[in-house]
């Protein structure tokens, strides 16, 4: 799931929890799902790319992306 999709899902869950009708069991399940989404989203943010890479196409049509030497 993309960062944006994760965030949207958590927002939905918060809205659902803030509604009145949910059974407690259901509310806790949603909460757990929300936690999982938040974890996934923060993982997405915690990637830290350093180098700029260069797209190279080999003769056989495959690609590699070695670090670009400045």
């Amino acid at each position, binding site marked *: 799931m993309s960062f*944006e999709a994760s965030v949207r899902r958590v927002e939905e869950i*918060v809205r659902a929890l*803030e509604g009145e009708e949910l059974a407690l069991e259901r*509310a*806790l399940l949603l909460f757990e799902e929300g936690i999982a989404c*938040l974890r996934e989203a923060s993982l997405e943010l*915690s990637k830290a*790319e350093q180098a700029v*890479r260069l797209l190279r196409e080999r003769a056989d049509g495959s690609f590699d992306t070695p670090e670009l030497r400045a």
Partner: protein
Amino acid sequence: MPSQDLLDPAPSLFEDEDTACVSVPPARYDAMPDPGGTPASAITVATLTAATRDILEGAVPPVWVRGEVVGFKEHRSGHWYFTLKDAEAQIRCVAWASDARRFLAAPDEGMAVIVRGQLTVFPGRGELQFRVRALEGVGEGLWRKALEVTRARLEADGLLAAERKRSLPFLPRCIAVVTSTDGAALHDVAAVIRRRCPATRIVAVEATVQGREAAASVRAALARVCRWGGADLVIVGRGGGSREDLWAFNDERLARAVADMPVPVISAVGHEIDVTLCDLVADWRAPTPSAAAEAAVPQLADLVRQLGDLRDALGAAVLERLGAARQRLRVAGGAVSGAAAQVVERRGLRLQGLGGRLDALSPLATLARGYAVLHGVSGQAITSTSGLAAGDRFMVRLRDGRVDGLAERVEPGPPLTPATPRAP
């Protein structure tokens, strides 16, 4: 009813010129004894014009000539015919299709141009003729015309429509930057993306962005990005330059290639004033490569804050929900209270466990790059200068450990306000 050719005989006459020029027999005037010197050795008209042409072409090397275009006509074969004139003189000009198709645009009537070519003779009419090999506008006229012609074609195909514009990915995972790998544009884009959002990968895709080969080179680079398929956003562009430098980004085939890209494209041709055709067909137009990078990625700090807010909202919502349930059970009270209390207790414990996980999820703990959390001696987080006094001990938590410190001086300042959300 006269046919089109009868109405307009000039093109078909000129049309013969290609063949006429090569089919005139080699000049023989110098091979004869005293050619043309006597009635008996009279030379042909073709020999005379051929001789004139040879002399002219030998005596006048290719030159640049300035003048105004009048009587412009493009023949169906693609050859151009016009007269170049100024206040005192004029000369017939021809540009063969093979040359004309390289020119920026067909000049308008009266347009001032500079042409380079060869002075010659058109034997079919016994006329002086200038064979144009290069044609440039004086001022912006020709540039604008070329731009408008191509723009109209793109518009007719719907490529400029606002509803075609795709929204940019909220948090791109990988951005392909199509530009010269040793230009400033790539450096600028990389610097901004690294600063705002280090989570996004940057892949440079080499292209020549200057000169005659630029349009084809950028097109080839875009095709490479498509074949690869690893990018969810493309930035294409270059740093600033003269109009000629940026002209490749007005190439029709390049503009169509940009429009055809399967992922959103940000165009960043470094020029504040002129808008290129690539800008017009791209999903987002940025005036400079740096601005493109700003539009491409969000501020990581904003996202961290957003996740923190969501986490708080989620926690608050579920606590609220649990509190309400506890309250209801308490109200129900009576004989069942023991069993019900146990249920609530169990759930309360579970919630505590979840709460612990919530804390462990703190974005500040996982989002290590460039962030630190300041704790006081009793472990409380310190988020304001009011939490510390000179001489207090504190602890800084970093990605890979902690640093203990002693506050030398505390200097309160105005609080930082949150950044405003990005534009797109």
